[in-house]
C-alpha cells in the first residue's frame, strides 16, 4: 500500500467525565482522580458526562430538543472532531465526507413507561390500555430521538456531513468495526475522509436495566478496572462521546492539516468465548499488527470474566498497560474509538499518561507504537495499532 493511503487521524472529539478535548483529558489523566457519581443510580456508580454547553456544538435549540442525551453527546463530540480537523463549515468537504457511526439506541420516556406499567395490572383491557396510552403519552418525535441511525442523521443535519452515512449496531464490536471499515476504505482508495465514532450515555436507567439483567455491573464502591477484579469486578458505565476524522495522508496533505497519529491497522473478530478463544484471537491480531508495541491501551470493561482473561493476555505480552475504563468508565459502542483516541493523543504529545491502577507499570519514554485492545463484555475482540503519523 502506498503511504499516500495511510489512515491518519486529523481530528479528535472526545468528551467524558474527565472533560472535553485533548488538553482536559491529558491533564486529568496525568493527575488522575476518579470522577464518579455513586449516589444517583445506587448501588451502581457511573462516570457522569462533564458539563457541556450544548449550544457550542448544537447551536439551534430546536435541534437540541429533537435529541436525547446519547445523541447530543455524539453530535457534540462529532463537532469537536470536525473543528480540530479544520473541516467544520467547509461545505464542499462535508458534502463528500463519509461517516460511520457506532450506535445503540433509546432512550425511554421513564415517566410514561412507569405510569403505564403501574396501571396495566389493574386495567380492564391491558392490551387496549397499552395501545391507547402509547398513542397519547409518548411525545410524537421521541421515536426520532431513539432510533439508532438518528445519531448519524443528526450529525448530517447539525454539521452537514452528507457524503455518506452508515450506522453499525452491536455494542463494543460496532465501535471497533466502524473504525476498521473506515480505515480499510481509506487504505483501499474507497474513501478519502471519514468521520467515525460513537456515543454512549451511561446516566440512563433503561441501559442500566439491560446491564443489570446480564449482571455486568459492579455493585458498590469505585475501584480501578484491574484492582476491582479482586473484589467482585464488574463494569462501571461511563458517558462518553468520541468521534475522529480519519483521512488519507494524501488528502490531509492536500488540505494542509496536521495529523495526530496514524492508525496502522484495526482487526476485529468474534468467538463463542470458550476457554482461551479470545486470547488466541488477540494473539493472532497482535502478531498481524507486527507483534511489537511500546505499551497497550485497553478498553477492558471491568466485566468479570473477559476482563480477567484480557489482563492475563496483556500480562503475557509484558507491556505497560492502561485500562482507560478506570478513568472514563465503560461506554460500549465508543469504548474502542475512545481508547484509540487516547492512544493517538499520547503519541501526538510524546508521552503516555501514568498508571491508573496499582497493577499498571510506569512508562517513561515517548511511545511510538501503541496497541489498543477491546474484549467486549459479551462478544467481540478487537485490536488496533496506533503509530506516529
Amino acid at each position, binding site marked *: 500500500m502506498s503511504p499516500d493511503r495511510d489512515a491518519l487521524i486529523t481530528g479528535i472529539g472526545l468528551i467524558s467525565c474527565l472533560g472535553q478535548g485533548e488538553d482536559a483529558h491529558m491533564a486529568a489523566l496525568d493527575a488522575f482522580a476518579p470522577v464518579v457519581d455513586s449516589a444517583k443510580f445506587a448501588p451502581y456508580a457511573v462516570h457522569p458526562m462533564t458539563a457541556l454547553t450544548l449550544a457550542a456544538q448544537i447551536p439551534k435549540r430546536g435541534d437540541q430538543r*429533537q435529541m436525547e442525551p446519547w445523541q447530543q453527546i455524539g453530535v457534540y463530540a462529532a463537532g469537536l472532531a470536525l473543528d480540530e480537523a479544520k473541516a467544520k463549515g467547509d461545505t464542499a468537504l462535508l458534502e463528500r465526507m463519509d*461517516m460511520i457511526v457506532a450506535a*445503540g*439506541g433509546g432512550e425511554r420516556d421513564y415517566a410514561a413507561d*412507569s405510569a403505564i*406499567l*403501574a396501571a396495566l*395490572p*389493574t386495567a380492564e383491557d391491558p*392490551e*387496549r390500555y*397499552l*395501545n*391507547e396510552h*402509547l*398513542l397519547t403519552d*409518548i411525545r*410524537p*418525535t421521541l*421515536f*426520532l430521538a*431513539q*432510533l*439508532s*441511525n*438518528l445519531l*448519524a442523521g*443528526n450529525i*448530517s*443535519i447539525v454539521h452537514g*456531513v*452528507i*457524503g*455518506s452515512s452508515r450506522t*453499525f*449496531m*452491536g*455494542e463494543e*464490536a*460496532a465501535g471497533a*468495526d466502524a473504525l476498521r471499515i473506515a480505515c*480499510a*476504505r481509506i487504505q483501499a482508495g*474507497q474513501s478519502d475522509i471519514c468521520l467515525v465514532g460513537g456515543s454512549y450515555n451511561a446516566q440512563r*436507567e*433503561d441501559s442500566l*436495566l*439491560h446491564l*443489570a*439483567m*446480564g*449482571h455486568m*455491573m459492579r455493585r458498590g464502591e469505585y475501584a480501578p478496572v484491574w484492582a476491582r477484579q479482586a473484589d467482585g469486578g464488574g463494569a462501571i458505565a461511563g458517558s462518553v462521546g468520541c468521534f475522529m476524522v480519519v483521512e488519507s495522508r494524501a488528502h490531509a496533505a492536500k488540505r494542509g492539516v496536521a495529523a495526530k497519529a496514524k492508525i496502522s491497522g484495526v482487526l*476485529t*473478530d*468474534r468467538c*463463542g468465548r470458550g476457554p482461551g478463544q479470545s486470547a488466541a484471537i488477540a494473539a493472532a491480531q497482535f502478531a498481524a499488527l507486527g507483534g511489537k508495541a511500546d505499551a497497550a491501551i485497553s478498553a477492558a470493561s471491568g466485566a468479570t470474566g473477559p476482563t480477567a482473561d484480557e489482563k492475563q493476555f496483556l500480562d503475557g505480552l509484558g507491556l505497560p498497560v492502561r485500562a482507560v475504563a478506570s478513568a472514563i468508565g465503560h461506554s460500549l459502542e465508543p469504548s474502542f474509538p475512545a481508547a484509540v483516541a487516547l492512544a493517538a493523543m499520547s503519541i501526538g504529545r510524546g508521552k503516555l499518561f501514568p498508571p491508573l491502577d496499582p497493577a499498571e507499570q510506569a512508562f517513561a519514554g515517548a511511545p511510538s507504537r501503541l496497541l489498543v485492545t477491546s474484549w467486549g463484555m*459479551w*462478544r*467481540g475482540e478487537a485490536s488496533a495499532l496506533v503509530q506516529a503519523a
Partner: protein
Amino acid sequence: MTDTDHLGRPIVAITGTGIATSLGLGKEANWKALTAGVSGIHEITRFSIAGMRTTVAGTIDYLDMEDSSAPAMAEKLAGLVTEEALAESGIGTPGDFPGPLFMALPPVEIEWPHRRALAAAAGVNEGLSYTDLIRAGENGDFAAWYDRFLFGSVGETLAARFGTKGSPIATSTACASGGTAIQLGVEAIRRGECQAALVVGTDASVNPESLIRFSLLSALSTRNDPTAARPFSKDRDGFVMAEGAGALVLESLAHARARGATILGILEGCGEAADGFHRTRSSPDGKPIVACMQRALADSGLTPDQIGYVNAHGTGTPENDKMEYVGIAAVFGDRVASLPVSSNKSMIGHTLTAAGAIEAIFTLYTIRNGVLPPTINYETPDPTLPVDCVPNVARPAKVSHAISNSFGFGGQNVCIVVGAAPE
C-alpha cells in the same frame, strides 16, 4: 467477460438468494405471488389492535415461535433465508461460510412483555419506577433477556451457526439498511478482503409500540385494508409496515467461476448519499436522491440510458413518492415517462430494514425472469407523478440493468445497480 470491472476491481456476482415476506417463504412462492399482484397486507392478529389508528401490516404469521420479540423473529427469518441462499449458491460447507456476514437489522430494545414481567417481578404497583425494574432485573433470572436484547446477539448467533468469518456487522440506516449491507459486502470483495460475503436484511418489528411510533409520525396509511399501500397513486396516504428477510451470497466473479457456480446476476454498483435537510423529510430539491442514483451509475460504469427498470423505494407516503419521482426525472430526463418504475411495497408492504435486500433480490429476479412486477392498487393515478409504474398487472420485458432504490428515515439513501449474468 473478464473478472474485473471498468475500474479494474473484482466483479461481484450474486450466486445465492433467499426471501421471506408476508407473501410466503422462499423465492418461488414470493415471485409467483409478486407477479400475480397478490397483496400480503392483512389485519394484524399477533397482538391486540384495540385503539390503534392503523390495524393492518404485512406481518409474517407462518413462524411458529414461542418468543415473538423482534430480535428473535428477525433472527429466525434471517436463518431461513440464509439457508435458502446457501443451498442455491452451494458455497462453502454447512457451518463454514468462507467470508464475512453483513446484516441489516432493526434497532433492538427490551419490549413491553419483558417490561411487564420485570414490573411483576419487582412487586411494586404504586409509584413503580425504573429503579424497581433494575432491582428486579439484577435479582431475578433474566440473563437470557440480556443476551436477547443486545444489539450484537442476532449477528453473533448467525455467525456462529453459519460459520461466517470475522466480526459480524449489523447496520442500521433505517429503510436503506439492506442497501447499506449489500454495499458493505461489495466493498469488502472489491478490497480483496474476502472472495465471498453473506448479506442478510431482516426485520420483524411489527409490535404495538413500533406501529404506534410510526403512527405518531403520521407515516402510516390508515386505510386499513389489503389495498392500503398505494405507491404513486393520488390517494396514497402512507406506508404499511411489514416484515421480511432477504439473503444474498455475494462472490467475486472469479471465485464463483472457479468453483463452477451458477451466476444469477451481477451486483454492478452502489451509490449512497446522506441528507442533512430534516429528520423525516428529504431535501426539497431531491439532491441526495439524485446523487445516490448518479453515484451508483458511476460506480457501475453505466449511463442512465442503459437502465431498463427501476425498483422504486416507492413507500406510498405522499412525500417519498413525490421526491423519488423528482429524483428519477432528474437522473433519467425525458425517459422518465417511459422507464418502468414499480414498487414491490404495494404488495409486500414496507419491510423497513430488510427492504433494501429483499427488493434487490426482486430486482435480480425481474432481470432473470424477464417480468416486471406490478404496482398494485393503482386506481387513481397522481397526475403530478407521470411514471410507468407497471400498473396492477405484471408485464414481460427484457432488462439487462436495473436499479433498486432505498431511502431511509433520517436521511440515509442507497441505490444498488443489478445486472444480468454474463452470457
